[in-house]
């Protein structure tokens, strides 16, 4: 029983890391007032680019750089669409996801060969701490990339908390862009940067998934994890701690897919696959009534009196 719990927690935390990394980026974006639905596509692009980079150069670190760069490019595209030309954020986000899915599937046919070894990241147990019962393997036996990403996420959380200038600026832009603008805050620049942050972190989340967890690229390998990240932000009421809890729950729900069959529990696989999404539905259905999104979410900013 203890063993099972340990396994479940370890797998759950490992699967929660990509969700958390992407969700904390999405949190920054949404707080600035831009809903980035294309997290899914950015993750997939990042995963694809990291595997291409790692296999062609043989270095996992180059893979990480490629994943982050691809995420940045995807973020740039989304920022141009959402912030600069003020396109419908939901429509372009979903279309960008479709483009990423089709594009990476297309690219995988051309650039990746089946069965090549992908340089990746191995588990890096922290001495002593990793031997703790139950929690040890979950928290202290992750990959090096996961540790770095978790530190980065925590750092981002502090930098954009509601006690720093950056955090207040972010919230001001997301809550009332016109007032922020009058106060001299460069609204469009803040939003543009925020979407770039979403891109980089989503790309890194995809990289983590591809290089540290799955160790290869498969078509549509994110399979909706990016949407879970978007939902984690809603379910976490736009607060970093809430988002982290939501990401952990989604990670655990995904981990059940692997631990329950290993235990010999006879549950149809499809039921386990749908579990995270059912939880996500329950989360948005049950929690949204109690929390409030940033007022300016999905509303593009145009200075008053300038244009329609």
């Amino acid at each position, binding site marked *: 029983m203890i063993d099972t719990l340990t396994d479940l927690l370890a797998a759950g935390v490992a699967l929660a890391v990509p969700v958390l990394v992407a969700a904390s980026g999405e949190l920054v974006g949404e707080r600035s007032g831009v809903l980035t639905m294309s997290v899914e596509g950015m993750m997939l692009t990042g995963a694809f680019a990291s595997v291409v980079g790692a296999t062609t150069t043989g270095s996992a670190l180059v893979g990480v750089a490629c994943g982050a760069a691809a995420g940045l490019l995807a973020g740039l595209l989304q920022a141009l669409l959402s912030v600069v030309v003020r*396109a419908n954020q939901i429509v372009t986000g979903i279309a960008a996801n479709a483009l990423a899915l089709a594009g990476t599937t297309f690219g995988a046919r051309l650039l990746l060969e089946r069965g090549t070894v992908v340089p990746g990241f191995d588990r890096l147990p922290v001495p002593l701490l990793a031997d703790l019962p139950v929690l040890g393997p979950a928290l202290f036996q992750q990959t090096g990339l996961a540790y770095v990403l978790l530190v980065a996420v925590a750092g981002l959380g502090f930098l954009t908390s509601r006690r720093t200038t950056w955090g207040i600026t972010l919230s001001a832009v997301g809550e009332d862009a016109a007032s922020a603008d009058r106060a001299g805050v460069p609204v469009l620049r803040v939003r543009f940067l925020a979407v770039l942050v979403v891109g980089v972190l989503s790309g890194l989340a995809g990289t983590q998934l591809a290089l540290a967890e799955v160790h290869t690229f498969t078509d549509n390998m994110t399979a909706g994890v990016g949407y879970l990240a978007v939902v984690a932000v809603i379910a976490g009421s736009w607060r970093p701690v809430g988002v982290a809890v939501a990401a952990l729950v989604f990670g655990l729900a995904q981990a059940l897919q692997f631990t329950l069959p290993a235990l010999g529990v006879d549950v149809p696989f499809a039921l386990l696959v749908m579990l995270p999404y059912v939880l996500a539905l329950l989360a*948005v259905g049950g929690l949204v009534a109690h929390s409030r999104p940033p007022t300016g979410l999905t509303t593009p900013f145009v200075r008053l009196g300038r244009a329609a």
Partner: protein
Amino acid sequence: MTSAARAVTTPSTDAAPAPAPAPPSPVRRRPPREEGARDEPRRGHAARLRDLAPVLVPLAAVVGALAVSAGLAALAGAPPAEAAAALWDGMVGTQYAIGSAVNTAAVLLLVATGFLVAHRAGLVNVGGEGQICVGAVAATAVGTGLPPATPAAVALPLVLLAAAAGGAGWAAIAAWLAVRRGVSEVITTLLLNFVGAAVLVLAVHEEALLRQPVTSSETLPQSAPLVEAAHLPLLGLPGSPATVAPVLALVVAGVAALVLHRTGTGVRLAAVGLSRPAAHRLGLGVDRLRFSALTTAGAAAGVAGGVLVASAPHVLDDGLSSGYGFSGLVVGLLARGSLAAAVGVATALGFLVSGGINLQLAAGVPASLTQVAESLVILGVAGTAVWAVRPARARRATPARRRPTPPLPRPEATP
């Protein structure tokens, strides 16, 4: 003006009340808002071009997307001429190709019709895929359970009704959450896609549900075939797999067009879509209208799923809906509220999908190229929407809105 400040304000400079000669910059690409009658005498080629912008700009986006796709095909090792030949052959080369393209178009048109009905009420139904899956599961449950002697006049409507009910029920979850809990239907219908796809997989993998009796280790995870009477009849063209599905889809789209444009219900839906508070003040049952609009969209997508199962090979398997939900959404978005346009776009996309399959078979270009083209078209059209505003609407709306607010002094205008 600093360069940064300029970057911030450029997209809107041309709408300022005193139009200076436009600087040579991206500004020119955007039609300036017209100032009522003041501009009338100056209408020349530029103005006429501006009137055409709603047509020209999306068209340019489509052409651009196709050009990029052609480039990608070349990257995949197919010379443009060969790729074009394979595409053309797959679209209209044989009776078989035409028939299957028309069948695909019918499925897309059904999904798009539902999308447009919901869109009229201000709802974005992204859940076509899940609704197709659940509709198909419901249709299969009825279609395989009917006694073989059922007459077709009973079996076929029953199967399609079950499909509609399945799709509507699936959308009703999202509709209920939107109406009662205020949850964005975009998020819920998206999530329901994943759950719906899993429901389909579950149904075809469990013998207790819809899987055909497992007799050997090679029994595929798919349902037993539907009873003969529940098969969609072919149109009877020689060598063509075209079924009555296109006729059905056209009828559904026609009815939807009538309801949306010629009945009180259509006006009420539009009122809700334009402004919920205003519709509420008019005494309209806003919640009920939104709920029924989204469930209707689900029903239409469900029927699309039913049509897919009731066409050859008449079984349900887990690859049933490969992206029809998204493509239907694409059709709905490109049609911009017009069902007549939806018929045209669905037909075009149906042929493109059909051609894309042949592109893979004949020229070795991965079929995902079709999806690349589709999503590029949507990105292009959505990204240029700002430039494609109908001038007529802008003329009416702009002066009224601008009058009370004189332009703010720009704090950063003086460096």
